[in-house]
């Protein structure tokens, strides 16, 4: 909905009309650290997409004669115990982090939002049943819940995504429920009811879109948390199995040789931290830019 600034509209008490998109862009880009995060995320996505072209070597190719080489001109970040190029493994690791982040969050957001929407919209027993279940799941630390599920399902990429997906559901359900509870009190929802709109239609067409802004912020923020959790699981040996080049598993592998080659742990950890930091900062920026209290301000 594009609004134009009309001359003479600045009557006291009436908020001036502003272009919402333009305000969003201005607030979002006003902090340098947010822009930095944006750049890192774009680079991260490009790295994951073009890993085979960017990596100087095959991340799984072993050269036992070059075991634990120090960083040099041929291997910028050195090699691991099997002589695999660390830089190439870090580059390929971005794919796992991205895939786990996107799919686990996708599962969690889809399930959590539906549950939260139903709970918040219908209230009463539906809300009590769903939200008490979610409260109970929240009694476990997220990584512990994922550990238990992953431990039950066994290690492996797919199971890690399912485990993290399940562990993250309660957060989304709670947020969506709270949003739906407040949005459904609006007059336009009452109007929908009075023209005989179905529950499904009201929920999907009217409540859902109006609940989205804080959820978008949450999804961005949780992207980093999910990647951290995946790395934690892989570090413990309950996540993505070795020899796959996932950052958490690489940190664990490097931990064994930390005296001889600390770079084996440092490099994937630094990459992980940089990406998680960027997602958090962009989430912060989105929150500021989507803040409803700013609506209508210039």
């Amino acid at each position, binding site marked *: 909905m594009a609004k134009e600034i009309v001359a003479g509209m600045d009557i006291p008490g009436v908020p001036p009309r502003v272009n919402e998109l333009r305000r969003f862009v201005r607030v979002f880009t006003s902090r340098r*650290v947010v822009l930095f995060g944006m750049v890192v995320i774009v680079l991260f996505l490009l790295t994951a997409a073009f890993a085979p072209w960017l990596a100087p070597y095959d991340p799984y190719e072993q050269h036992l004669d070059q075991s634990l080489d120090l960083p040099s001109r041929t291997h910028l970040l050195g090699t691991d115990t099997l002589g695999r190029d660390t830089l190439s493994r870090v580059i390929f690791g971005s794919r796992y982090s991205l895939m786990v982040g996107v799919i686990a969050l996708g599962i969690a957001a889809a399930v959590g939002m539906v549950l939260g929407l139903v709970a918040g919209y219908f209230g009463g027993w539906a809300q009590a049943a769903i939200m*008490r*279940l979610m*409260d*109970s*799941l929240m*009694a*476990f*630390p*997220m*990584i*512990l819940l994922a*550990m*238990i*599920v992953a*431990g*039950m399902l066994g290690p492996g990429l797919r199971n890690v995504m399912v485990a993290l997906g399940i562990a993250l559901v309660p957060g989304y359900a709670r947020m969506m429920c709270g949003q739906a509870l407040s949005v459904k009190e609006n007059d336009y929802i009452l109007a929908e009811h009075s023209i005989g709109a179905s529950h499904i239609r009201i929920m999907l067409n009217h409540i859902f879109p109006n609940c989205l802004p804080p959820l978008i912020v949450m999804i961005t923020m949780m992207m*980093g948390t999910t990647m*951290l959790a995946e*790395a*934690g699981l892989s*570090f*413990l*040996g*309950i996540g993505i199995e070795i020899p796959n080049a996932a950052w*958490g598993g690489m*940190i664990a592998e*490097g*931990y064994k040789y*930390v*005296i001889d080659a*600390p770079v084996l*742990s*440092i490099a994937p*950890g630094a990459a*992980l*931290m940089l990406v*998680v*930091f960027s997602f*958090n*900062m962009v989430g*912060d920026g989105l929150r500021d830019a989507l803040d409803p209290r700013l609506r209508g301000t210039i």
Partner: protein
Amino acid sequence: MTAYIIRRLILAVVVLLITSVIVFLAMRLLPGDPILLKMTSSEMRGTSPEQIEFLRHQFGLDKPLFLQYFDWVGGAVRGDLGVSILYQDDVWNQVKQSLPPTAHIGGLAEFFGFIIGVPLGIVCAVRRGKWLDTIITVLANLGITVPVFWLGILLMYTFALELRWLPAFGYTSPVDDFWASTRQLIMPVFCLAVFPVAAVMRQTRSSMLEVMRQDYIRTAWSKGLRERMVVMKHALKNGLIPVLTFVGLGITNIIGGLVLIETVFNIPGTGRLMVFSILNQDYPITQGITLIIAIVVVVVNLIIDISYGWLDPRIRYN
């Protein structure tokens, strides 16, 4: 207030009951038969089907699921969490031995989280936009980002392996040797405290900024009160209420972090026992620890909820 407390208590009990059902079902609906697992773990290979049936009966696994649940919860209430498959020992016994290091390290991390996080948050809020605020905020943003196990490895490499200032791993009870214990604790506690310090600082900063905008603070300023008075006496009281929530959040986060940190620093605590039991499919231990953690989290959150209602009367009537 009494009605509020009773409501919260009932809610906590409901949550705990659902939690126990989830824990129970998760373990029972697993692929894999606990008896067969027991068979392969102990030296009882070549057991006849009749003997297996007998064991099944002995462990109550031939009963209907809901009776098994009541048996388990009934036992748990009396402190009987079953027998570990791997250690052939009482689960509670095993967990009890692992609790002191975990509680010690986790408690210290939570304590430092608040002792350091709150003052930093206040300083940042008061000096908003100044260089000190910028530096602390950037550090806090890094603090909620850093992978805790990676930080542990870095610290260990730097301070234990290279500089040799601190012991690389292990745990000593402070009762046995306080100095050795403290030296071993510095790195793990630091790693675990980074997140709570950063999170508490961010929360304190934003809620103090919120409070400082209130009318009664402007009144306090216009009365000519000194900054120390306005900040410490008027703003802090209300500014700290939202920070309370972080006690609960801190606990869950520290428990999650302990699992990783105990693995990095080789500390014989509950977190490592948990990882070990999951990796070795020792379900009774996993189940027992999970239940204990859920109880701790629910009780802490109950206490927070009640103190919240006590400090902020608006909450009570919601």
